[in-house]
């Protein structure tokens, strides 16, 4: 998890395009300036970052389902629930599942766990648009490689 660059997902553990779901891992840093302010004596991951991590997990799922032909942009967050504190150094496992693919938008449901304990969940809607800039597409390919996104899964069907 690279908080400074807002790259919150470290690796794809499983991508199942038939079941339209993904599981990813995100290692919360043991130390970061964010934890100095949030909160002194009780460092904990901000809920907005947990929500963003669920959105990024969903985004990777959608990129797979869309074969990287369109980019999902965060549009609506519903039912975002912070169910428990996430401490520095925790390994967050996030599962996202496609709830609905509409025309130009998609809705996912995501859940984040530390171990078996459910820490956060949300229903997230994305607008789906062509990549606005080729540089972004190249960047997403590089990111996909970095996090072990199984690109063969979207080319072998």
């Amino acid at each position, binding site marked *: 998890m690279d908080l400074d660059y807002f790259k919150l997902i470290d690796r794809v553990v499983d991508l199942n395009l038939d079941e339209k779901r993904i599981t990813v891992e995100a290692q919360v840093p043991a130390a970061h300036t964010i934890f100095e302010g949030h909160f002194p004596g009780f460092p904990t991951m901000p809920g907005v970052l947990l929500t963003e991590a669920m959105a990024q997990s969903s985004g990777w799922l959608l990129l797979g389902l869309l074969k990287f032909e369109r980019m999902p942009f965060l*549009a*609506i967050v519903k039912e975002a629930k912070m169910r428990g504190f996430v401490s520095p150094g925790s390994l967050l496992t996030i599962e996202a599942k496609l709830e*609905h*693919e*509409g*025309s*130009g*938008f998609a*809705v996912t449901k995501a859940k984040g766990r530390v171990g078996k304990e459910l820490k956060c969940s949300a229903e997230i*809607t994305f*607008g789906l648009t062509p990549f606005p800039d080729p540089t972004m597409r190249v960047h997403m390919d590089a990111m996909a490689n970095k996090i072990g996104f199984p690109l063969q899964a979207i080319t072998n069907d």
Partner: protein
Amino acid sequence: MSSTFDQIANIIAETCDIPRDTIKPESHAIDDLGIDSLDFLDIAFAIDKAFGIKMPLEKWTQEVNDGKATTEQYFVLQNLADRIDELVAAKNAAPGA
């Protein structure tokens, strides 16, 4: 069973916090009710789910942008209800439906 118009009016009222009694068959979703594109995503999701369809919003938008259709054809609520009825009928007529 409530009409298609009633169902979408209820969805709009709930999704956009618009008083139900102000939503009429002749209301234009954008011009009269002030629904923006983000709220319409939410409405489209609810309608898709309620009717088991996929409203072709991108196709409709393209038709409007190309001058091949007017916004009234898709966004006046009675017309929207008619389009939804057509989509449901097409789905039910499809092989394996």
